[in-house]
């Protein structure tokens, strides 16, 4: 009965919310989506599955970046905007100015795990400052002892994602302050297996990639607990700490839907499908929201549709 109490706590919304029981099979139309390359992976997976059920709908998904996607969104060019951060106040202003009313829906969590070799006993905890010392191009620590004098006097071997990935953008922005600001002498790869193997085979290696991939290869690597600033605790990444927003290197992923587009049945059906299939986000390597968070977002969507 717990789920009933939980739902009751969230409030009740009129029934038949989501346009009734959608058995519509012949939906036709076009949906335009653009935005973050991080959320693109989820949107693409959802769109691929959705199109199998509704082949008459054409969905175009672009990757202009979160900012670029918002620009198109408030200019009215797209129906849905993928975003790896919350919308900024200037962007909200532009939406207001252009008369665009939107709905913010969270779709998944993204977390970054910093990993070291199994034999690495010294770097179990690091602060954000220490990570910055290693990865910032100006300081670019060469040896472990440069970061902390008690650590071994050995050169650090670095692994990380390539410059085209959203993980790279997120890590550099969070740790170094600016997107794409990173030292360039590390081994880049889009293939996480290459990164895992690289860190696994080198005692003095350090790398970073998504939490979900770390969970898959947990037994081969050690993970580093990260502290954002003094006064915080060191938190190790796991699906749980990411969900609860305790881990500093985690962020929510959103889609922003134009409310006027929700009047069209194909957009309604797509947004509904998006929120009902969180395992698609998990398949591409992100952390799916728990049932409570999912229900909350679904209610938001149902309310918006009913309001229309």
């Amino acid at each position: 009965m717990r789920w009933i109490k939980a739902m009751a706590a969230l409030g009740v919304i009129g029934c038949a919310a989501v346009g009734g029981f959608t058995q519509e099979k012949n939906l036709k139309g076009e949906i335009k989506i653009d935005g973050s390359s991080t959320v693109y992976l989820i949107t693409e997976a959802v769109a691929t599955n959705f199109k199998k059920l509704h082949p008459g709908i054409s969905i175009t998904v672009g990757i202009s970046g979160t900012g670029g996607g918002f620009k198109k969104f408030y200019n009215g060019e797209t129906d849905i905007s993928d975003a790896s951060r919350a919308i900024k106040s200037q962007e909200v202003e532009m939406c207001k100015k252009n008369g665009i009313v939107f709905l913010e829906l969270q779709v998944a969590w993204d977390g970054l795990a910093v990993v070291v070799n199994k034999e690495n006993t010294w770097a179990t905890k690091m602060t954000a400052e220490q990570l910055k010392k290693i990865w910032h191009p100006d300081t670019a620590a060469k040896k472990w002892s440069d970061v902390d004098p008690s650590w071994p006097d050995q050169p650090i071997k670095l692994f990380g994602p390539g410059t085209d990935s959203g993980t790279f953008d997120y890590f550099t922005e969070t740790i170094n302050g600016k997107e794409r600001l990173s030292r360039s002498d590390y081994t880049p790869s889009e293939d996480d297996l290459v990164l895992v193997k690289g860190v696994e085979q080198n005692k003095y290696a350090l790398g970073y990639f998504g939490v979900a991939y770390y969970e898959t290869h947990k037994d081969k690597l050690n993970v580093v607990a990260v502290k954002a600033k003094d006064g915080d605790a060191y938190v190790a990444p796991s699906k749980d700490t990411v969900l609860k927003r305790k881990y500093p290197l985690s962020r929510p992923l959103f889609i922003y839907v134009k409310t006027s587009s929700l009047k069209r049945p194909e957009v309604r059906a797509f947004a509904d499908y998006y929120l009902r299939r969180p395992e698609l986000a998990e398949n591409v390597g992100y952390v799916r929201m728990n049932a409570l968070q999912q229900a909350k977002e679904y209610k938001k969507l149902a309310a918006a549709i009913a309001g229309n």
Partner: protein
Amino acid sequence: MAGVLHRKLSLARRAFEWCVELSLLLCGLLSIAITLAIALVVIYGSIEFFTHDDVLDDSGRVLALRTLSAGEVWDRVVEFFTAPTWTASFAHASYGIRPLLTGTLMVALIGGVIALPIGLSTAIYLSEYAQPRVRVFAKPTLELLAGIPTVVYGFFAVTAVTPFLALFIPGLGRPNNQIAGGIVVGLMIIPTVASLSEDALRAVPRSLRDGAIALGANKFETSVKVVLPAALSGVTASFILAISRAIGETMAVSLACGGRAYLTLDPREGVATMTSFIVSMAQGDTPHGTTRFNSLFAVAALLFLMTLGLNIVAQIFLKRYRQVYQ
């Protein structure tokens, strides 16, 4: 030739003939238009690159471009040709062409080392030694080799050549290294060297060969000491064209050598070449109108000028050998 006609053509006929000639002329002029267009596009983009810089917002995203002063433009140009790093995808980007140029030249060098001896030997064999039956079978084989798409060569490099080389080269970069890229590019340009050199060798008149044999030389000495020097300009032209093709090769080196721009002379590492950088920049989601995107044009301009220069030199050599024998 049309002046040979002595009867008067009707006006319609004359007009038609004139129109036909004009349209054919336009077709011919289109090729000039293409070259001009390429040069204009590439030079315009390069100028944009050298004279503008990014205006960033606080989180590092590009807002607009601002024009640089003359001093800054000169600094940019100097940095382009002398800086040892190419970090176009990173913030605080350093745009030095040396890593990319080294990568391109290294791959072309390895390719040349493989293709030139093999291609030349093939050409000498086919023109001097081979029986007609062998030639009938060998020429199409070479042309088939030339017809394989370069993507498939790149795939071959990653899946077959690199594992094979890793058996006996220690410290070979996997999956990307320049040796595999160079080998595969060499395989690609063997047909170019072979067919052009063979044409040059065949064009040498029989009298030279007969004279050499009359003086007691055997076939090998005739080929190498008499025929080859006579056809040297043609053979050189084939070498130059092959190297030019190796420099311009894109997909195979992109797959085989990877995309990390890093200045090194160690062929076991996998580094980006000029062409693979252009492709990776076009593939990524770099927005148009940023310095990062415009660097593509600068690299393409250098590439275009290099291959154009090599082609012109090769054409000069080719004209020389054609003039001597025709």
